[in-house]
């Protein structure tokens, strides 16, 4: 039987069925077996007990960039919910389902009735096996993992270890009973299920170099905040950013830091700006609705030139919108939300590792350029889990108040001195002889209010000059795909980049010369790099996950040419095939 080395498994249940925990264990087990994983969960916005929860994991020898357009295997812990997931299963996919519910159910209430010809259904008495293992039905999720391991011949050791990790801190009996449940499910699959599919891991354990970290985008952000030695996290809980706050609330008190749950997002950004003004590293994390509330004080940070880092885990909008759905539609407000000409820095990581590295850089940029930095994640990136080589989770620490910015010399201190780079000397409150005023009003070089036209023009130009300096000195983003002239060049950002990279690989396989440019520094624009890429591209496309094509509109003036927009809102990440189809349609 040929070995399949790239598969997507979905576990679907009702909130509380344990589908997300099962996928968490599956992730770790696969990583411990030496495979790469990419996991993305979808769960209801409401509290436990309602709605559909779907955990999706892609397991591959090659690092996956997306959770896959369609699943190869669907595990049902709740048939009515899972029935609605069937359209996401491959036509030759596998369904694992309960075949011993408590009573006979009416037609179309059980997923077995929906399994289409060409698919493979494996029924198993999940409930009965769970009762045998733990005297209740609560371990159906672990039983199903055993079934998966048995059918696909996945090495059991990784699962045992993953179960121990998942239930660490619980009673030993809990760990043992769950391991028992796993083995009961596995034994059932090996003894009772006649294999009829082509997925076979051959119980292989692959070699992996060094220590692996398994984390989500949010966890990577929190880890970066800790490693950047932040002193304050201030925030108001909001999906999908809350996980960052949860981690930092537990961690910071032991690291000379503080987490404050504020009364709202205005207060949260106020706290962060206060810390920034005092020279302490601080961060807040929010989502679209929270970012809306923060715009006024972010504007103040621009005017007062105060460092601040805001993590925005985007979700579907506008307004409270879709708390547990992914979208890249906060770009406009991130780049230009607020009154006046208000330049700020916007960064966008494209994967979990970059959630770490760019968050670390965001503090350095905020402090060096004395400006607010907004880091744009989205629901998919914030919640997706990847395995990362732990050695790559590093970054330089330059101190929270770069010494070369401190005023020196004999001339009077000008906190907002007009410089060629736009960056002025900075002083912290209480520094002797460096008294200055900080205000949201337009001000002169010493910080005193000054509404003269020339001063406003010079100061505005200075604030923009900082952005030009950053765009000039910040490392660019390496182009992806073919060198030289391209039939199709694709610009994309954030979590959509994974889909675009896979689409480019498919296109190249079909003989299309294709490549991509994926700016991590979204704003200010690195115009030269963008122009160079545009010149190489016979046809140019901008791909993103929003309805109106916000990046496309933002970059249109720099591109000054005709280009295709690949934009839309989806239930999850942008399907790779949609991008491929759009590009092929757009080629002559």
């Amino acid at each position, binding site marked *: 039987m040929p070995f399949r080395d790239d598969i997507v498994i979905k576990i679907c249940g009702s909130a509380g069925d344990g589908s997300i925990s099962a996928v968490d264990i599956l992730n770790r087990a696969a990583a411990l077996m030496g495979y790469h994983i990419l996991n993305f969960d979808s769960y209801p916005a409401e509290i436990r007990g309602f709605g559909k929860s779907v955990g999706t994991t892609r397991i591959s020898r090659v690092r996956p960039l997306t959770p896959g357009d369609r699943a190869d295997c669907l595990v049902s812990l709740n048939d009515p919910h899972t029935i609605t997931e069937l359209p996401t299963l491959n036509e030759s996919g596998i369904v694992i389902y309960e075949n011993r519910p408590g009573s*006979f159910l009416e*037609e179309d209430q059980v997923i077995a009735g929906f399994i289409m*010809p060409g698919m493979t259904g494996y*029924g198993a008495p999940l409930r009965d096996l769970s009762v045998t293992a733990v005297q209740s039905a609560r371990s159906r999720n672990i039983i199903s993992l055993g079934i998966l391991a048995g059918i696909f011949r996945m090495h059991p050791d990784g699962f045992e270890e993953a179960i121990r990790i998942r239930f660490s801190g619980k009673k030993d009996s809990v760990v043992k009973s769950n391991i028992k449940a796993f083995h009961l499910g596995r034994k059932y699959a090996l003894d009772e299920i006649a294999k009829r599919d082509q997925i076979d891991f051959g119980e292989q354990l692959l070699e992996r170099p060094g220590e692996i970290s398994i984390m989500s985008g949010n966890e990577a952000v929190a880890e970066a905040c800790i490693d950047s030695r932040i002193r304050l996290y201030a925030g108001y809980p909001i999906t999908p950013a809350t996980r960052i706050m949860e981690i930092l609330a537990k961690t910071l008190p032991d690291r000379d830091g503080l987490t404050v749950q504020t009364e709202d997002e205005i207060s949260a950004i106020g706290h962060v700006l206060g810390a920034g003004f005092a020279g302490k590293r601080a961060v807040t994390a929010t989502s679209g609705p929270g970012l809306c509330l923060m715009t006024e004080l972010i504007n103040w940070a621009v005017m007062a030139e105060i460092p601040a880092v805001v993590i925005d885990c985007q979700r579907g909008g506008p307004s409270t919108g879709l708390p547990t759905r992914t979208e890249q539609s906060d770009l406009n407000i991130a780049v230009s939300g607020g009154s006046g000409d208000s330049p700020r820095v916007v960064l966008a990581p494209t994967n979990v590792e970059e959630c770490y590295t760019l968050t670390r850089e965001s503090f350095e940029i905020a402090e060096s350029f004395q400006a607010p930095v907004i880091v744009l994640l989205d629901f998919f990136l914030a919640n997706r889990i990847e395995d990362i080589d732990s050695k790559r989770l590093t970054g330089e620490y330059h101190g929270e108040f770069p010494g070369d910015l401190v005023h020196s010399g004999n001339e009077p201190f000008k906190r907002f001195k007009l410089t060629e780079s736009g960056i002025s000397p900075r002083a912290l409150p209480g520094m002797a002889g460096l008294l200055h005023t900080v205000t949201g009003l337009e001000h002169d070089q010493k910080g005193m209010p000054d509404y003269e036209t020339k001063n406003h023009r010079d100061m505005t130009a200075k604030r923009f000059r900082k952005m030009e300096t950053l765009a000039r000195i910040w490392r660019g983003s390496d182009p992806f795909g073919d060198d030289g002239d391209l039939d199709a060049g694709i610009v994309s950002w954030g979590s959509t980049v994974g889909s675009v990279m896979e689409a480019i690989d498919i296109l190249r396989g079909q003989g299309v010369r294709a490549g991509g440019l994926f700016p991590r520094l979204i704003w200010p624009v690195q115009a030269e790099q963008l122009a160079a890429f545009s010149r190489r591209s016979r046809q140019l496309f901008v791909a993103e996950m929003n309805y109106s094509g916000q990046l496309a509109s933002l970059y249109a003036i720099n591109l000054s040419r005709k280009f295709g927009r690949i934009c839309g809102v989806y239930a999850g990440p942008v399907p790779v095939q949609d991008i491929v189809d759009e590009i092929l349609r757009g080629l002559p």
Partner: protein
Amino acid sequence: MQSEHYVIIGNGPAANSAADILRKGDPDARITLISDEFFPYYHRHLLRHYILGKKSKEDLIVRPISYYRENRIRLRLGQKVVRIDLQTRTVFLAHMEKVHYTRLLICLGGKPRIPEIHYVYSEYFTAIKTIDDAEAFREQLPGIRSMVIVGGDLISVKMAASFLETGMNVRFLIDEDAFWPLKLDDDQRRDFTERLSARGAEVISGDVLAGVEPETEGGFRVRTRNGLSLSCDRIGAFFGLIPDVDFLVGSGLDIDRGILVNEYLQTQFEGVYAAGDCAQVYNPDLKNYWVSIGWDNALHLGQIAAHNILGSDKTADLPPLNLLNSDGVKVQTAWWRDL
């Protein structure tokens, strides 16, 4: 008015020919085919070519899956019916789902028959009836050098010819029960044995299986009533097929060799029909029941049943002289004596 829901148990020629007629005759109806096999409608007579690698699985398929989608026929594969409630018109499936019907057609075909005196050896027998059986056998084929075939039926004759092509040593134990339920005359029986011998099979006539023992180093030892002791890697059991109707026991349906139906293929329950190998059909002229085997008969009966479900009064008359050419020997495939 609620539309009809025609449920057909089975996915062979009778079931599919019936579904075609039902779809044409009632475009708005729901039609559901339920089969415990996972593979779609396929040519069973080609299984021997599949075993030898001359045909792929895809070559066996009669019609693509898309056919069912396009014709709005719901095909439930790998789903086993475990019970029927004729009062509430409900079919119960093994995975504990209830499917309600307005008209039911049972086209179950047959399952390998093991004579009662040989039940005790069932676990040592190899039967090839389905594609799963064929697939399992195909995987084992390289390690099978010798085979004893007991019973003997039309399928086994063709299978034996195929096995001989691989260089396998084939011994054929033909007793008086061989080719059941066909009633071969002496000439036909002699014809079969001569043809098998000519191909290289060792035909042992007039002897009867008396015992089977597994051998410690693998394989089996077959003992006969006349004292023969035959060592082999596999024992092929080909005693014909019997209707796979165990789950219908207690349902209220009259069952003898098959499901008893009148000349319109209707059971004693209104709206419940049977067709194909599993049906035992009443003939008013004979005042007796008849049964048939074979693809063509099944197709024909499936069509008749479907027409009658739609309101016609077509009778399932005896096939006039329905001959099956098996390995060059022509045999009748419908009969009514000694049922």
